[in-house]
């Protein structure tokens, strides 16, 4: 029976690089990332400590056929598929191998990842606003009280996430050589 371990750790949508780094550190100490479960539970299995590099990509709405091709291209380039969850795809490559390319080799495609994320977050934001206005905000029932607090908080969080990602896009563009 393989040894397993679960960790509770929160990474927000704009902290993908921090998460990648953490997953790589875990592999270095012999814990290989396997699954993610709500809310923020990372499960790992025990293996030999190794310098694997973990990277994530965001691709919501890949069709089954596209997904096969997508994974094949990553595999050929030396990036093994680990798992995907809510549109986030996780890959790992052997950092000790002679040569590993980055997932993105130009600014445009790097920015595209975050633009896609921005699109999703904006869609959720609009959906939450609509639900809030239509059902929650003007509902006199007392059991709605909890939602009257949770929804505005959720909206603030989503707005903050949008802002953080916009700043990120800007800084990537600024770094462009």
């Amino acid at each position, binding site marked *: 029976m393989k040894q397993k371990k679960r960790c509770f750790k929160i990474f927000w949508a704009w902290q993908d690089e921090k998460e990648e780094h953490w997953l790589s550190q875990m592999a270095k100490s012999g814990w290989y990332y396997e699954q993610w479960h709500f809310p923020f539970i990372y499960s790992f299995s025990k293996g030999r400590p190794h310098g694997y590099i973990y990277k994530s990509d965001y691709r919501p709405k890949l069709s089954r056929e596209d997904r096969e091709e997508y994974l*094949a291209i990553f595999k050929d380039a030396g990036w093994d598929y680990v798992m995907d969850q809510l549109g986030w795809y996780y890959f790992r490559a052997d950092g000790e191998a002679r040569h590993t390319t980055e997932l993105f080799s130009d600014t445009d495609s790097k920015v595209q990842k975050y633009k896609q994320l921005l699109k999703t977050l904006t869609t959720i934001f609009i959906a939450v606003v609509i639900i809030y206005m239509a059902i929650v905000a003007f509902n006199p029932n007392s059991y709605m009280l909890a939602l009257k607090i949770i929804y505005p908080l959720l909206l603030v969080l989503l707005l903050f996430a949008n802002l953080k990602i916009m700043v990120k896009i800007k800084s990537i563009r600024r770094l462009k050589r």
Partner: protein
Amino acid sequence: MLDSKGLERYLPLTHTTYYILLALHVPAHGYGIMQHVQEMTEGEVELGPGTLYGALGKLTKQGLISKLDEEADSRRKYYVLSELGRAVVKEEFNRLNTLVQNSREIVENLGEKVTTERVLNEKEGDEK
């Protein structure tokens, strides 16, 4: 076929796009393109898989390349330059070529002899 005016809206191409289109003068799959580009540029340009996948989707949508139907290995999809793609590559080549031609004389005469000293001397002269 589009005239050069119609082609202009695709230009200028990014490094990534230009090299991918060049690599697809013969049919190739994703990894084939990566290798081809690496050979072409003597290792200088390495396409990331995320960058390549995104570009293939975009270029197919624009009609500059087309996906070939079922190959023996169905996991790997083959692509090839379309007629439009061919025209766009030629147009970009001509654009870059004109740029080089027009600037050659000036740039070559800039040489390495322009030293800080000369620049400073000229500056002093200006001030006087």
